């Protein structure tokens, strides 16, 4: 394909974790692929605000596609981490029963896990649970342990996937909100709200919360995606309540419940709630729900303290029915639906990439492997992870590693510059890439420094800098 051409073999709508995995998978073939995203950066929807968990494979029955993809996807993370340099760790998952009545569902989860072929899954006595997780409440009566479960930084995962896809020729178009689509001969013409348009032979609808709207724009199936809000608290890395493993309560019929999660980066996340909301852009947190989270978390780990709270946030999970909806449209030609990707979507996402690649093949897309496909991204050294000796060596090569910009998460100017050079030019984009502004001061000390670095590196004016894209301008005037 000629650079700048607007005609592609495959267009993927939505650069969340599903779209990113599909794009990266397709980048291994001799195809012209475009990934379009309505937000200012990738991973700015559901993929940025979730529990960041690679699930243990025992929550869902194998009769569901989501369970099969979860099991397959979970196995793919080790290799992906080695290739794509994102934070991931198999710390294990425990499900804590706090009452004798909860031991029956634990047993059912265990049986389901065994049936699903989960390696190392274990029914635990109270003593075993307290040994696995000493921070647990003394009231714990027993539980389940899945050693293969893990934690991942979801936005970094998406950033790496997209970066690697781009390295292998995939074109990314952000700020591209699909408005209409028309099939002309063997091609779709897809128009964005801002007037841009692209052509593609195949289209994959991975539009998350808005997959219903995108489906209608293509004249495909008419379905409704509902949003379920999950609110979270983030706790300081100095907290005393940090568990060694992800701690789940016994699930209910609608949700896996509120968890205590030791994040890969050392902080602790508690939540989420699960509330159906009408407005699919409603990311507001509420006083009542946040109180519920603290109570629920303390029930399992009593040392959870509200004085450790750094911030709260909410994410919206799309749901349409019990299972994922991944299949070629029966109404629109060459249009693949990847919708209703709720939990365990993040875990399943690498397998979704694989699955959609196969669907496209069945639909007639010719897949020829690229001889020069490069599965790796260039690693960014992180000052936080280095010993003083290693940091010293690095500063000699790049003095910007000696400028600490974000003191709370120890992020250097070099890392901020790297984020900007990789296309993350909003405050939130830089936050997700580097962790600057994500620590205990929440940007109180470093925001002005980051603003100056953005202006210097990109040539943007003060009035062009946003928190997360159009409308979210950071500054309103100059003296």
């Amino acid at each position, binding site marked *: 394909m000629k650079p700048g051409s607007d005609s592609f073999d495959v267009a993927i709508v939505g650069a969340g974790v599903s779209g990113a995995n599909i794009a990266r998978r397709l980048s291994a073939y001799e195809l012209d692929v475009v990934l379009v995203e309505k937000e200012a950066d990738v991973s700015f929807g559901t993929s940025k605000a979730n529990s960041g968990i690679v699930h243990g494979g025992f929550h869902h029955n194998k009769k569901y596609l989501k369970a099969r993809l979860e099991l397959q996807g979970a196995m793919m993370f080790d290799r992906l981490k080695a290739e794509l340099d994102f934070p991931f760790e198999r710390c294990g998952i425990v499900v804590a029963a706090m009452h004798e009545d909860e031991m029956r569902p634990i047993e059912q989860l265990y049986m389901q896990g065994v049936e699903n072929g989960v390696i190392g899954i274990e029914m635990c006595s109270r003593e075993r649970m307290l040994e696995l997780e000493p921070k647990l409440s003394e009231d714990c009566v027993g539980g389940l342990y899945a050693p293969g479960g893990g934690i991942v930084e979801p936005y970094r995962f998406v950033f790496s996937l997209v970066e690697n896809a781009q390295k292998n020729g995939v074109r990314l178009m952000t700020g591209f909100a699909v408005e209409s689509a028309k099939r002309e001969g063997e091609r779709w013409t897809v128009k964005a709200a801002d007037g841009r348009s692209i052509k593609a032979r195949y289209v994959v609808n991975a539009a998350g919360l808005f997959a219903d709207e995108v489906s209608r724009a293509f004249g495909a199936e008419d379905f409704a995606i509902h949003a379920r809000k999950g609110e979270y608290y983030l706790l300081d890395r100095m907290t005393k309540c940090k568990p060694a493993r992800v701690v789940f309560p016994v699930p209910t019929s609608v949700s896996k419940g509120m968890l205590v999660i030791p994040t890969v980066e050392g902080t602790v996340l508690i939540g989420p709630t699960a509330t159906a909301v009408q407005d699919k852009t409603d990311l*507001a947190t509420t006083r009542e729900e946040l109180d519920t989270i603290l109570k629920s978390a303390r029930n399992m780990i009593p040392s959870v303290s509200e004085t450790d709270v750094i911030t709260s946030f909410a994410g919206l999970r799309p749901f349409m029915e019990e299972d994922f909806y991944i299949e070629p449209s029966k109404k629109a030609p060459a249009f693949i639906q990847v919708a209703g990707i709720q939990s365990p979507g993040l875990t399943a996402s690498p397998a979704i990439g694989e699955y959609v690649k196969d669907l496209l093949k069945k639909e007639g897309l010719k897949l020829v492997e690229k001889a020069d496909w490069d599965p790796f991204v260039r690693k960014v050294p992180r000052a936080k992870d280095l010993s003083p000796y290693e940091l010293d060596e690095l500063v000699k090569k790049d003095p910007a590693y000696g400028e600490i910009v974000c003191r709370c998460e120890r992020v250097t100017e070099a890392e901020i510059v790297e984020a900007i050079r990789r296309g993350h030019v909003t405050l939130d984009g830089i936050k997700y890439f580097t962790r600057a502004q994500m620590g205990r001061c929440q940007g109180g000390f470093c925001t002005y420094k980051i603003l100056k670095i953005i202006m210097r590196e990109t040539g943007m004016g003060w009035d062009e800098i946003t928190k997360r894209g159009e409308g979210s301008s*950071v*500054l309103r005037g100059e003296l």
Partner: protein
Amino acid sequence: MKEMRFDAAVVGGGAAGMAAALEFAARGLTCAVIEREEQLGGILMQCIHNGFGLIEFNEELSGPEFAERFEEKVRKTAITPLCSTTVIEMEVEGEEKVLSCVSSGLGVIRLRAKAVVLAMGCRERNRGNIRIPGSRPAGVYTAGLAQRLVNIEGYVPGKDVVIIGSGDIGLIMARRMSWVGCKVHAVVEILPYPSGLTRNIVQCLNDFGIPLYLSHLTTNIYGKDRVEGVEITPIENGALMLEKSFKIPCDTVLLSVGLVPENELSKNMGIEINPMTNGPYVDACLMTNIPGVFACGNVLHVHDLVDFVVEEARRAGAFAAEWLAGKRGGKEVRVKAGPNVRYVSPSKVAPARDNKLYLRTLVVKNDAVLEVKLNNKIVRQVKKSHVQPSEMITLTLGQAELEAAASAPDSVLEISIQ
């Protein structure tokens, strides 16, 4: 990695750090001041309003002017200022403390010192700390960040402003934002009384006709991309009056909801922290639980005035210098915060000499009496026409009052407000 060696290292080059360092220099001791910003002065550099130095210099200076006077003194001594340098780790190695510091010019330095003075200051509490619900749009900033943007960087963060919390920085910023042509619609305070100094209420709010809502809680922040407004709810008899909630449209929310001493470095070194102040526990010589490590200024407890900060820092520097000279503290008496007192700093006094104490009340009270008891016996009573939590109280206790403690074991000094 480079190695450096000093008698003393001061972490932080603000008012406290400079004042402490000057004490070492005055006694001929070698000393480094490690400062992460490009210049010495700390947060004073963005405080371009006046009101600094009334006690210290008997005149009203701006923040940068106050800092400059100390910086000039520092430059005339042999003190080594290490600016644009961040301490990333502190350890104890035998008799020495080792500070790993990083800068772009020198890389990582292993700085060894026999004594260390902690003077890192504090940070602002943020939205998450006080759990304001609502959306997370652009336009929510701490007052200190806004102050930096306006006073140093030359940018205006927003035009229609609501300030949450009536801390001093918030009040100062209410006036500053008004001066740059913004409309400040309200200052909202959860408590029934202001958190800032009375003079700031008068000069920064009343003089500009900015309404102050006391006993009001911010119950929501609206806006998808940029702030569109806040919801304010009155508190009556301790209960939220949700039916009386109202909305104030604005594009900017500034938070002035308290300061927290920044002690993560200290905690990682093993220093014990007092949960009442969030600063280290210190003895009568302002020394932490690690011998040879001292603390002063806002990293020890949050002060109202920089004049108090430098006073305390000078003592910390002098005590540290004495410690380096081999002097070890004598008998000390535990200090207890009694009824209506939130904390007293330091938490010990030495009966053999004068002790300067700083304390904060828990209550607002007119015609109060500050009462000092030693082993349940009143040794001092001070009449106070008015006390409130936002105004720090100073007190000096001397040998005369404390001598009874010199003989009695397990003595306790209790300070209360009656």
